[in-house]
C-alpha cells in the first residue's frame, strides 16, 4: 500500500496536477474570500471564515474528481492494472494507496488556507475575536468532505477506462451527495421522512461540524461513506474475477 501511495503521490508532484490543483483551489477560495465583493470578508464586516467553508465544497466538487479521474481509468486503459494486480498486493492495498494519495493532495491544498484564518484572526476587533472552535470543526468537516469526494472519484475512475467519463460521473455524484439529498428532502412526497433523507446527505453533517460541535455520529457518517465507496471500488476491481 505504501508503495502505491508514494508512487501515486509522486506522480501528482511530478506532473502538473498537484500544482494546478493546489493553485486553483487557493486562487478560487482567495478570490471568493478577499476580492469578490459579494462574498468578501472585508465587505462583510465580520471576522469569520464562513465563505471559505460554504464555497470550498463547491470548488472541491470540480477539483477532487480532476485529481482522482486518472487513478484507475488510466491504468485500465494502459493495461498497467494487470501488472499491478499480478504483483503481491491485495486489492485493498491498491485501492487504499490510491485513495490516500489523492486525499493527501487535498489536505495539502487545505494547509495554506490557514493563512486566511490567521489574517481573519488579526483583522478581528479586538484581534483574535474569531470563532476558533467553529473554524476547527469546519476544517475537519472540509477535510472529511474532501475524503468523501476522493473516494467517490476513485470509485468512478475504477468503473471506466475513460477519464472524462470518470470526471463527470464523479462530479455529479459528489454534487448529489453534497446537496442532492438536502434538496430531495424538500419534495412533498418525502416530507414525512425529510430528516432521514437530509441525514443521508453531506450538508447536514458538514453544517453540524462547522458549528464547532464535533459529534462522533457526523464523523462516523463521513467514514462510513468513504468505506462504502472504497468497498465498491474494491468490488469493481474484483469484478474481473466474475
Amino acid at each position, binding site marked *: 500500500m*505504501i508503495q502505491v501511495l508514494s*508512487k501515486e503521490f*509522486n506522480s501528482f508532484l511530478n*506532473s502538473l496536477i498537484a500544482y494546478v490543483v493546489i493553485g486553483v483551489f487557493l486562487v478560487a477560495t482567495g478570490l471568493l474570500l478577499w476580492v469578490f465583493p459579494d462574498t468578501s470578508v472585508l465587505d462583510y464586516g465580520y471576522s469569520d471564515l464562513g465563505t471559505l467553508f460554504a464555497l470550498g465544497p463547491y470548488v472541491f466538487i470540480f477539483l477532487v474528481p480532476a485529481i482522482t479521474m486518472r487513478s484507475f481509468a488510466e491504468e485500465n486503459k*494502459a493495461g498497467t492494472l*494487470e*501488472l499491478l494486480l*499480478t*504483483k*503481491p498486493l491485495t486489492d485493498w492495498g491498491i485501492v487504499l494507496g490510491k485513495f490516500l494519495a489523492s486525499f493527501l493532495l487535498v489536505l495539502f491544498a487545505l494547509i495554506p488556507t490557514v493563512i486566511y484564518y490567521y489574517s481573519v484572526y488579526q483583522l478581528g476587533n479586538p484581534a483574535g475575536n474569531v470563532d476558533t472552535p467553529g473554524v476547527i470543526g469546519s476544517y475537519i468537516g472540509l477535510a472529511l468532505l474532501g475524503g468523501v469526494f476522493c473516494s467517490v472519484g476513485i470509485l468512478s475512475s475504477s468503473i471506466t477506462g475513460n477519464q472524462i467519463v470518470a470526471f463527470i460521473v464523479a462530479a455529479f455524484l459528489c454534487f448529489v451527495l453534497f446537496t442532492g439529498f438536502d434538496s430531495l428532502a424538500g419534495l412533498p412526497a418525502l416530507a414525512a421522512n425529510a430528516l432521514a433523507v437530509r441525514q443521508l446527505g453531506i450538508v447536514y453533517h458538514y453544517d453540524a461540524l462547522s458549528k464547532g460541535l464535533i459529534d462522533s455520529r457526523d464523523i462516523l457518517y463521513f467514514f462510513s461513506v468513504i468505506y462504502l465507496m472504497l468497498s465498491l471500488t474494491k468490488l469493481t476491481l474484483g469484478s474481473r474475477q466474475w
Partner: protein
Amino acid sequence: MSLVVKNLTKRYGLQQAVDAISFEVNTGEIVGFLGPNGAGKSTTMKIATGYLPPSDGQVLVGGYDVAVQPMEAKRITGYLPEHNPLYLDLYVHEYLHFIGGLYGMRGNALKSRVGEMVERCGLTREQNKRIESLSKGYRQRVGLAQALLHDPRVLILDEPTTGLDPNQLTEIRKLIKDVSQDKTVIFSTHIMQEVQALCDRVVVINKGRIVANDRLENVLQHNRSNTIVVEFEGVVAAADLGQLDGVLHVQQQSPGVFRLDAEQGRDIRPEIFRFAADRSLSLVGLRQEENSLETIFRSLTNETTAPQSEN
C-alpha cells in the same frame, strides 16, 4: 515441478477460451507456448499469474495453488503481460524501484538489484530517461527487467518479442536464455523460429486445446511430411509416376518437374530411380522436401480439431 497446469478451463460466457488443458514445466526448462491468435495463450497466462480465476481446474506455481494462495504464488512469479504495459510517466530506475518495492525489497538491496538488472538488460544509457521517451525495444527490456527484478522462480512472458527488430530480437532471446538457467520459463509466441532458438520443449494449443506437447525435435519428426520433388530431363507423363508404389499424389510443377506425396514412413526414392532407369530417362533432380516450421505450425493448428495424443 515449478509450474503445473491441471485441467485448466476458462469460459467467457458461452465461449470456451481454454478447454481442460494440462501441462507441466520443470525448473531450468524453457517452454514455448504456441498457438494462433485467440488460441487461449494469454488467457492461460493470465490465470497462471492470478489475474483471472479459472472456471475449472487449477494452476500450481512452485507448489502454490494460484487461486488459493495468490500472494505466495505471485511473490515467486515474474510476469510480462502482453503489450508490455508500463507507467510511461516514470523514469526507468524509478519504475524499477517501484516494482521492487512491491515485492518488499528495500534500501541498498533494492538499489543494487535495480542496478544489476539495468545493466543486464542493457538499459544503462537509458536509465535516467522517462519510459515514454524509449523506443519499443528498450521498453520491452524495461518490461523484462521488471519481470526479472525479484529473481522469480517462475517466469511467464506473454509475447516478449513482438515488434522488435532482428537485432533486438536476438538480444532479448539471449537475455531470456541467460536468466533461465535456474528458473522455469514459459513464453508465448506465434513465431516458430523463436521456439527453435530458445525452447527445450513446446506446447502448442489451438482453440483452447493442446495439440502438441513435446520436445521440438519430436514435434518436427512427428510431423515430417514425405514429399519428394523430382526433376527429369525429357517428357514424362504424370500418370506414369502415379502408378509407382507408395505414391499418393502427383503434382506437375513445370515440364519435367513433379512433386510427389508419398506414404508416411516410406522411402520412394529407389522406386523413382528404377523408374527412370527403366525408361532411360535422365534424372536431374531428386530431393526430399523439408517441412518448414511454419508448415508444421499451420498443419497443427489448422487441421487438427481433435487433440493429438500427448507424450
